[in-house]
């Protein structure tokens, strides 16, 4: 067996072990398009080295072909990684570029140029190799300068793009607030690409040694470099396999998020904006008097601010749903029930419900943001449906709080709902109901007193 065949046998064995390792560990734990592509590359390299180890290839042009065939998979891997980092493989890889590349247009352009430049230089190297053949795969034999040129044409661009990709992965891994698993994943890929860059550098040096170093020293240096390259190749395969097998599942799934965007958010925004339009355009006239009395009654009974907002939202909803004008035609009990059910769906997922929030005011980071649960609309929808939708109530209230009764009494007094609805108060709610009636009565009295005072003062000022 010649030195060439021996070297090909060693490298072929490493490639085949890497292929088996990759197939069983990386692919079984997480199958991505890239991992399948990498596995195919390893199989291809194994076959090429196997061919070289089996057959004695004495022609120098054949050696050039084999040398380029063994370099091609690595070139393709580097090109693929660069394109994936710049999101140029929408159907074969992720649909987003890596974060540092998204922010830097020039970096993205540079990454996208990788396959064009790499394949161009492989083509140039192939032409050079055919025109000036050299003992490309006889690893310890002296070589002419043409061999160094051919090798450099492939290795320098490959090393450059591999270093660039390693740097981008490192930048991604250092991003603030990154999940630990994603940090290690990017670190592994950064190391993998660094190893590829080092292999490219080592190969260039190797070619230089074959050209310029004398016999005695050459063999020692080349053997050392070969061992170094083998170590680098093994390390590269291991870190890539580790990176690919690191599975990361986001806390919130994309399809769920899409469903929320098109379902709940759209419904709530439509409902609230239409309600606001109806109220602001003055469609629900009876609402104004009732709202003032509700607010006053809540203050009389020291009802908390959040409960008072619920009472006000309830009376607003009831007024809008009962208003016959065209402005309020979309605010129906059916729409309210549908929205309530969507909200309940979100509240069923504790993690999601706690995360989805919005500011109660524009620059209100300091104040408590509203969530689906804490926003007054959720409880108000239930209360309004309870007051209006008496024949098809899907959300019966077990215990009705004071704010509910204040809103109910006020709505009945303003003839927004039929007062007879309050005739059958459940025994368990009777105390709260009586308190609400008293508070509402006191509120009306004080509002009347204030109104009388204002009128008297007005008459005194303008006799």
């Amino acid at each position: 067996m010649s030195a060439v065949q021996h070297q090909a046998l060693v490298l072929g064995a490493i490639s085949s072990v890497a292929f088996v390792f990759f197939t069983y560990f990386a692919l079984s734990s997480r199958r991505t398009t890239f991992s399948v592509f990498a596995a195919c590359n390893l199989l291809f390299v194994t076959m090429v080295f196997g061919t070289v180890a089996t057959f004695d290839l004495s022609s120098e042009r054949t050696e050039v072909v084999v040398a380029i065939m063994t370099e091609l998979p690595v070139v393709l891997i580097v090109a693929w990684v660069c394109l994936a980092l710049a999101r140029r493989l929408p159907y074969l890889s992720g649909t987003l570029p890596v974060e540092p590349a998204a922010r830097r247009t020039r970096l993205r352009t540079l990454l996208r140029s990788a396959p064009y430049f790499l394949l161009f230089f492989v083509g140039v190297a192939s032409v050079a190799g055919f025109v000036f053949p050299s003992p490309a795969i006889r690893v310890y034999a002296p070589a002419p300068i043409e061999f160094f040129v051919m090798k450099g044409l492939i290795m320098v661009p490959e090393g450059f793009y591999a270093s660039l990709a390693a740097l981008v992965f490192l930048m991604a891994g250092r991003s603030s607030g990154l999940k630990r698993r994603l940090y290690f994943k990017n670190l592994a890929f950064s190391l993998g690409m660094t190893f590829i860059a080092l292999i490219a550098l080592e190969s260039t040096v190797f070619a230089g040694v074959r050209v310029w170093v004398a016999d005695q020293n050459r063999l020692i240096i080349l053997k050392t470099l070969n061992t170094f390259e083998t170590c680098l190749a093994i390390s590269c395969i291991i870190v890539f396999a580790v990176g690919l097998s690191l599975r990361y599942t986001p806390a919130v799934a994309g399809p769920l998020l899409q469903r929320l965007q098109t379902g709940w958010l759209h419904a709530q925004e439509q409902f609230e904006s239409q309600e606001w339009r109806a109220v602001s355009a003055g469609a629900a006239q009876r609402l104004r008097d009732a709202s003032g009395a509700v607010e006053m009654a809540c203050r009389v009974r020291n009802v908390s601010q959040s409960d008072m907002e619920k009472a006000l939202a309830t009376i607003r909803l009831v007024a809008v749903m009962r208003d016959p004008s065209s402005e309020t035609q979309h605010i129906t009990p059916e729409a309210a029930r549908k929205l309530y059910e969507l909200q309940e769906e979100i509240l069923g997922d504790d993690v999601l419900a706690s995360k989805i929030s919005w500011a109660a005011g524009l620059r209100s980071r300091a104040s408590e943001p509203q969530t689906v649960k804490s926003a007054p609309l959720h409880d108000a929808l239930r209360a309004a449906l309870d007051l209006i939708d008496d024949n098809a109530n899907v959300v019966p209230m077990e215990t009705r709080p004071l704010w509910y009764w204040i809103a109910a009494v006020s709505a009945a007094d303003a003839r927004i709902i039929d007062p007879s609805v309050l005739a059958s108060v459940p025994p368990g709610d009777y105390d709260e109901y009586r308190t609400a009636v008293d508070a509402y009565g006191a509120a009306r009295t004080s509002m009347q007193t204030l109104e009388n005072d204002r009128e008297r003062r007005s008459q005194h000022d303008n006799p």
Partner: protein
Amino acid sequence: MRADAPMRGFATALQGGMGTLWPHLRDAIGARSRVHGSRPLLTATEFQEELAILGLSGRKFVPSDYADALSDYLGISINIHVIPDDWYPELSRRLAISGRLGELRYSEQLTLAAIFVPGSLPPLVSTLTILHELGHLAAGDVMIVPSEEPGVSHGPHAEGVTHTTSPVRQGKKLARGSPFAEETLREREANMRASYALFAGCLGSDSPYADAMFSVL
């Protein structure tokens, strides 16, 4: 129709060929792959790219943060005015009657944008309205060159239906594609940007789209 084609030499033909190929090559490696023509509606992943450009990807943010980042990127001043109903009661009424929730005013000369929303809007609607108007700025809708050609939607495309875009004046915009020619589509996309922004701002690093930017292989 008959046209007299000029005799072309090899150099002219080569020049012509290069002229035809160059835009494709530039498009292949260039960062701005979409030029004026037609495109589909914005996706959540494309919006995540915009957030990355603004430095907000993977971060929790509120509309004012988005406005500040957009303001820095576009090099314009963006002011958000939440007008209390007590100050100007007619604003809410007028907006409600016209079917709008807020208003965006933009002055190219003063490099100034102002968003007006009534204070009486429910918090969620207010947040989405501000984000909607900011979405118009991000999309470059304010830079549209008025055209008399009606917008046309093309049939099903590989990534969905594509719609005609409008030419824009010289200036900076965040979106990679040109704004749509049809106003309803511009409004729809501004709504989509608002909902994407709301969820991205709420979820921060828990957003699956933000995570996807760190897991490309």
